[in-house]
């Protein structure tokens, strides 16, 4: 037993010596697996690209990181799959799971950072601060927060209080309307618009119900701007009679930015829409 321990210790020492012979910066970099799109955005904004070793399916990555492995969906993580990447930190939203897998990963000595999903800018800022505190992102955090503040001011300046708005999930054959507590609702409140849906979560509705709400603004989640809007009007021609369609106020946001709450990319989408509305 003792001989084995010695052998292992010797091996570990060897590993450390050899390990530290590689560039010095390497020792500082902690290996981070991100399990949600918003977290990945924040890590990239904090300049922690080099730390990122794997992401989930909802993360969008810049070119130079496109080859990172995917750990799948953040509520169906694989314990051994993640451990095989030899991570130091597992960062993502509180919804990561299943619980047993997260417990196993924690038990294996991996640090967990579980952020509450942000539905407003205060929570987003708090999440950025927490990530920065735990991962030594100090160098960039002030700049990120400064930019966030600037965007907040710009949003408030461009906000359109009283705009009757709805948020629709498109791309399926059904119309799904975003109610309270959804990312779509959070996006509308960032814009300063007034979500006309008076229920919680997403619900399938008829075109007639949307027409009855008389929205001045329709925001869709989809992939490409004009295609999604055109398809919606083709699919539900009745919507052409809404004030929003008549004034050309049917806009598409990238659905991948709204997977769980509001992230930095969703904020940029909100700014883009207020700018489009202001142009009119």
């Amino acid at each position, binding site marked *: 037993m003792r001989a084995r321990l010695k052998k292992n210790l010797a091996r570990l020492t060897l590993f450390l010596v050899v390990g530290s012979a590689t560039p010095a910066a390497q020792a500082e970099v902690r290996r981070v697996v991100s399990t949600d799109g918003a977290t990945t955005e924040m890590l990239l904004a904090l300049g922690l690209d080099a730390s990122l070793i794997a992401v989930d399916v909802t993360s969008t990555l810049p070119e130079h990181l496109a080859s990172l*492995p*995917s*750990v799948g969906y953040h509520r*169906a993580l694989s*314990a*051994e799959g993640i451990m095989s990447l030899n991570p130091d930190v597992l960062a993502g939203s509180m919804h990561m799971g*299943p619980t*047993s*897998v997260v417990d196993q990963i924690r038990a294996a000595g991996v640090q967990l950072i579980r952020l509450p999903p942000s539905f407003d800018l205060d929570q987003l800022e708090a999440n950025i601060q927490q990530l920065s505190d735990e991962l030594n992102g100090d160098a960039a955090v002030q700049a990120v927060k400064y930019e966030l503040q600037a965007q907040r001011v710009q949003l408030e300046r461009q906000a359109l209080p009283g705009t009757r708005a709805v948020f629709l999930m498109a791309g399926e054959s059904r119309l799904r309307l975003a109610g309270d507590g959804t990312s779509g609702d959070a996006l509308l409140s960032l814009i300063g618009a007034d979500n006309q849906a008076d229920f919680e979560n997403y*619900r399938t509705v008829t075109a007639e119900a949307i027409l009855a709400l008389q929205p001045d603004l329709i925001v869709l989640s989809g992939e490409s701007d004009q295609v999604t809007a055109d398809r919606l009007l083709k699919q539900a021609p009745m919507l052409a009679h809404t004030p929003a369609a008549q004034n050309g106020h049917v806009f598409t946001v990238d659905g991948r930015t709204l997977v769980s709450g509001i992230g930095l990319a969703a904020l940029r989408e909100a700014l883009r829409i207020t700018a489009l509305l202001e142009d009119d």
Partner: protein
Amino acid sequence: MRLSASIVALVLLSGLALGGVLSITTGPMALSMYQSLLVPFDHVFGWELAQLQDYQRAVIMEMRVPRTLLSILTGALLAQCGVVMQGLFRNPLADPGIIGVSSGAAVGAVFAITLAPVAWVEWSTPVGAFLAGLATTLVVYSLARTRNGTSVTILLLAGVALAAFAGAAIGLMSYFASDQDLRSLSLWQMGSLTSSSDIGRWLGLAALVMTAVQFQRRALALNAMLLGESEARHLGINVERLKLELILMTAVAVGVAVANTGVIGFVGLVVPHIVRMLTGPDHRLLLPLSAVCGALMLLLADTLARVLVPPAEIPVGIITALIGAPFFLGLLIKQRSLGRL
């Protein structure tokens, strides 16, 4: 292509042993096959043979071995219950879900996922699934009881009707569910061997021992049932009692399996047919061989689920259907060309 039972048994058992070794020695983390195989022995006998780090030992003992055991238990349970349901109902399309236990369990799980507090989900989902599955079976069974005994036709139809009703209830609940709950729900319905608790595995073992012993004792009665219900009655079998006992035990066993893993389809339907094609319809052989074959099938499916897209993994229910359906069709075509069907 009837084969002698001992050859099939030998092949299946060595397959299961190999499958077990494969399941313990492969995974997204690259560990030497020999070393990882030593770890369970070290653990049981207190040896120090494997030269692996502590975290690597943990991967074997806390991730791979529990999954291997749960795959074997669940596969064997589902396949045995499939044999019993097909034998009891004399219906080749019967699977363990036919008596409503899976659809009921799904409703229980939906209610637990959407309505129970988030902190409880870890245990409220399996408990809800088990209780609702059992309750549904009891409803189906009591609907089928007539003055002239339990009607198999009503039982089957009531099972179908309740499954449709359960589907609607799930649809209604998911209409009101939040996005997060919706994803949990659809993942649960694809099955996974990831989350297994110690107590879940012990319950699975208890259920397997119970069904293995009790089903085997009724194997001859099931053979007699193949002749038809009244023929079985004339052979001195208490058919009503047999039905009640087998349905209840199946409901409990499938309930435990579903609570542990979510819905895993196809094992209970396909495995009995495969074994029947290989060795014939004698339940004395069909029951134990199907258990081994079911265990082997789920073990291989789970190993594939873990290694196909590392570091992520595919829900195992998808793999069993992807492999099970074409394999089953292949067997059918082969049987057809031999003129047996």
